[in-house]
């Protein structure tokens, strides 16, 4: 595993040789007439560049990017650590299928910038209530039998909001990837658990050394120490070279830049756990682990516009921390009636699941919304049902910060007006608190 990286000079020489080869086909492409009369990009230099051959680019006509998290209190901004990097949301309104392209996957780091880790120097230590504390290199972890699983990640800060203009605003703090790595249960066999082992403390290498307590029952169930994401090494903003994947649980459990796992007898009440295990509202408690059933229509959704009357496909994503999605129903009349949608792709536990429902739009006003039921029989609530459970008025519901409410998985309606313009279907409200603001 100690192969020397090719020298820059050798790489450049090779690149120049390849560039020479590429020149001819590029010239041909420029002169070829469009086969079907559609627009062909002129100046295909970018598509034919050696860079694009070595590491593919998307079409320059595809411009979807992540949405940078807003900062609503700039006057009260504390000094930033250096480096600092803002969080960003997945542009779900343009999503296709169930896999989120890694470049578009939402990213949040707990207040500090990304560590720039050399994987040949990175180590993972397992210790605590174990028979044999061990230190693994990344290469050693890759010598253990890996598994690949498709799972969603979601920040607890995701919440339907009347102030969200797009589905990225309301639900963009989720993404779904294929994760490849070593089951944590296997690593725990390597070290051997001692009596009294009940919790795992996972720690990252970021500035704040983010730390999270995970029940051993979950660690032994389906947690992964992942080094692969969508067929390539996990990217730096997702935890390169190692991250924990805790399927179905809140995003905060999925510790990035993972460097240490300590087996202990109780949760360690790390910084962000005080407000969770000991929240100001006891109703939070059972909800701090896995997400409930959630779904949202991604097309058509806020800021989309239906250009003509006729045939469309209402399409969206559903997921649940409780397991696979059993059923998604779609309403075009604001929830008065529902029709069962087709689950059009893989239906996997704790993964985004694509649902579709063909729909003919004749120019009428419509309110589109979806409702998810998971394998445990848990059903996605409406905003009113959620508020009633908490005993909160609607303004109180939105004035509470997301993490204090558990998981805000209520139904998000989208309103289609007579000219086809799509906007948020939740009635306006003055103030919406956001844990990512500022």
């Amino acid at each position, binding site marked *: 595993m100690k192969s020397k990286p090719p020298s820059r000079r050798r790489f450049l020489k090779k690149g120049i040789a390849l560039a020479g080869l590429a020149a001819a086909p590029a010239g041909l492409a420029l002169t070829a007439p469009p086969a079907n009369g559609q627009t062909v990009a002129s100046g295909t230099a970018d598509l034919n560049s050696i860079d694009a051959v070595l590491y593919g680019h998307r079409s320059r006509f595809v411009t979807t990017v992540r949405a940078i998290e807003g900062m609503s209190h700039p006057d*009260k901004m*504390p*000094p930033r*650590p250096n480096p600092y990097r803002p969080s960003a949301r997945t542009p779900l309104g343009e999503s296709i299928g169930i896999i989120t392209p890694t470049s578009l996957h939402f990213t949040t780091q707990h207040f*500090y910038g990304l560590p720039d880790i050399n994987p040949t120097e990175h180590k993972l230590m*397992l*210790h605590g*209530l*174990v028979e*044999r*504390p*061990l*230190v*693994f290199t990344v290469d050693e972890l890759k010598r*253990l039998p890996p598994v690949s699983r498709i799972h969603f990640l979601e920040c607890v800060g995701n919440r339907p909001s009347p102030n969200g203009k797009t589905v990225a605003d309301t639900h963009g703090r989720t993404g779904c990837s294929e994760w490849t790595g070593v089951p944590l249960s296997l690593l725990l*066999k*390597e*070290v051997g658990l001692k009596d009294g082992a009940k919790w795992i*403390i996972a*720690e990252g290498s970021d*500035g*704040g*050394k983010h*730390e999270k307590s995970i*029940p051993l*029952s979950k660690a032994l*169930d389906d947690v992964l120490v992942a080094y692969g994401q969508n067929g390539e090494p996990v990217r730096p903003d997702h935890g390169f070279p190692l991250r924990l994947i805790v399927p179905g649980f809140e995003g905060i459990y999925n510790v990035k830049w993972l*460097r*240490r796992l*300590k087996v*202990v007898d*109780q949760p*360690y*009440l*790390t*910084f962000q756990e*005080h*407000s969770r*295990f*000991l*929240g*100001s509202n006891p109703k*939070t*408690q059972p*909800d701090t*682990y*896995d997400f*409930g059933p959630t779904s949202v229509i991604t097309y058509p959704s806020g800021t989309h516009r239906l250009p003509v009357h006729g045939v469309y496909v209402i399409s969206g994503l559903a997921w649940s921390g409780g397991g696979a999605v059993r059923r998604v129903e779609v309403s075009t009349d604001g929830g008065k009636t529902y029709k069962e949608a087709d689950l059009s792709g893989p239906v996997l536990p704790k993964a985004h699941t694509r649902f579709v429902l063909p729909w003919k739009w004749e120019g009428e006003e419509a309110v589109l919304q979806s409702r998810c039921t998971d394998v*445990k029989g848990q*059903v*996605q*609530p409406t905003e009113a049902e959620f508020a009633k459970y908490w005993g909160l008025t609607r303004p*109180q519901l939105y*004035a*509470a*910060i997301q*993490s*204090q*409410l*558990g998981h805000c998985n209520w139904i998000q309606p989208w309103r289609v007006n007579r000219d086809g313009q799509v906007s948020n279907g939740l009635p306006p409200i003055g103030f919406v608190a956001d844990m990512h603001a500022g």
Partner: protein
Amino acid sequence: MDRLATDCRRLALWPTCMRVDAATLGALVLFGVVAAAQQQAPSPSGLGRAPTQAELRAWDLSIGPEGAELPPGSGTFAQGEVVFMQRGCASCHGPTGTEGPAPVLVGAKPTMSSNYFPIEYWPFAPSIWDYINRAMPYDRPGNLTANEVYAVTAFLLNRNGIIRDGDVMDANSLRNVRMPHRADYKGPSPWTPDTRRGFTIAP
């Protein structure tokens, strides 16, 4: 290994009190155990290696609720006030920990509109030490010495009315601080693959 790592930390103090007595003999015996741990049985795969004691000391930042892992060192409210002003805490949290703009550290109440849980309501004092040590100051995390962390912890506990002016915070006294809302902590709920969410809406 937890216990061993902790004991090794405490052994760092032992030259200052070295006498041939039962405690020292005990420490020597422990050193023998530590040496043995380095030659532990291999893992089932044969991969990985045992961490050195130095690695465990340097890497194991986790301080549990009971503070078993707290390192040597000490600090007082008066020392903490100086550290708070001089090491950058006050520039974000305000000179008395109440002005912000960073989260209010003194006298705050937990609310539904904040993601931060005021430290006065934390059930265990060693958690405060852990977080300051691991993540503060914000722009230079991990830059404080153990004594400075004890001092700032003492400053904050005093400002929140939990300890007195002259109280010295060290591993022993900090783990014995009785937090005012300790009784409210019921511990986490268990999790199994069949656990359902706190509430569901009937179909």
